[in-house]
């Protein structure tokens, strides 16, 4: 995924595995990112996403696009979207459709 985004001309910061919500928010603030992509394979997404969003809110990050991937059952997708996840890319999502979604929905900051 990181490679597909890079090949689409984006700058991708890969922070490695097993990050805590605090560390994710901290890295997102310091790097001033436009998009956060979270891959969760542990099944803990229903517990993790509320924490991540509250950390992001506490850090004052309101205009960041958050997308998710990994092993997230279809039944949980609506719940995550209600929290603020813009899109969930389930297993088998073509890379280019994920890239296209991110390109189309990333916050535009062209006018500063």
């Amino acid at each position, binding site marked *: 995924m*990181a*490679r597909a*985004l*890079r*090949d*689409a*001309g*984006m*700058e*991708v*910061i*890969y*922070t*490695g595995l097993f990050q*805590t919500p*605090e*560390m994710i928010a*901290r*890295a997102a*603030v*310091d*790097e*001033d990112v436009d998009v956060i992509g979270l891959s969760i394979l542990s099944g803990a997404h229903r517990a993790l996403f509320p924490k991540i969003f509250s950390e992001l809110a506490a*850090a*004052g*990050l309101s205009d960041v696009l958050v997308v998710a991937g990994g092993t997230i059952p279809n039944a949980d997708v609506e719940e995550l979207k209600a929290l603020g996840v813009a899109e969930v890319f389930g297993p088998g999502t073509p890379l280019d459709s994920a890239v296209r979604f991110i390109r189309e929905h990333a916050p535009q*900051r062209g*006018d*500063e």
Partner: protein
Amino acid sequence: MTATATDKLIERFRNGERPALARLLTYVENERPAGLRAMAELYRDTGNAYVVGITGPPGAGKSTLTNAVIREYRRRDKTVGVLAIDPSSSLTGGATLGDRIRMLENYEDEGVYIRSMATRGEMGGLSMAVGAVTHLLDAYGFDIIVVETVGVGQDEVDVAELADTTLLLQVPGLGDSIQTIKAGVLEIADILVVNKADIKGAENVVRDLRNMLRLGEHGPWLPPIVRTVAVNGDNIEALLDTIDKHRAHLESSGEGQARRERRARREVLRLAQNWLAGQLEEVIREPAMEPMLEKLRQRDINPFEVAAEVARRTSVRVQSRG
């Protein structure tokens, strides 16, 4: 962004709000008007940070060493801003910035700020914005700024231009060490670090470096060789003491002042060249150039003549704009 929104951001920056620092760095990196405005406001607050450059071949343990250096500076109550630079893809402009520094250590400490940056392919060297980014980190008040970059291409030479003290990392086991240091690279080092000094071959690397130093030219400062095992933090205290020694040498010899002046001139030159390059490209694309370019394609005229005409037109264009 309106002037007032930028001013508000600059005010928040002055209050030490990290998100304001992060956002202004983005504007500076992307050469936005708000970034230029921030530089105009904040440049006068710079000149207090000490810049340490860390470079070396892939696999030398730069990120691990950077972490160890951050830890030791924090132990000495210094705040640290880190700029980790990775190459951009020359094909797509994209980049994968492996966030190795954060992967290795969980920083919750407000005294450490880490920022990743892509080279964005500025003629094989560092992004034009790197200098500006270090100015903002300086203005924010970090005591130490660490600029870490992989030693490929022109980057390590550029890092040395930015840094007060440049560390060049070498490790045993990357093949013949003499071959791994390209011509002109040893000269940029103020301190040579032989990392992974606990593994076989480390003493050979030290010996080779010593021989190379003996053959090469150097001023009154002979770059010391410091052995470290960054992963254990071994000898990092000695490394920081050596950096302090180099800093004292720069101040007492006047070389520090001379370097700062060279650096400022080079930065101005690069920025001016960058601006001029943009003007030249626009002139080449003007329809009025097309007949000449066609003659060039037919080989009725040579590139030197076309270049002279481009320079002449650019000069007229720049002057007419005042």
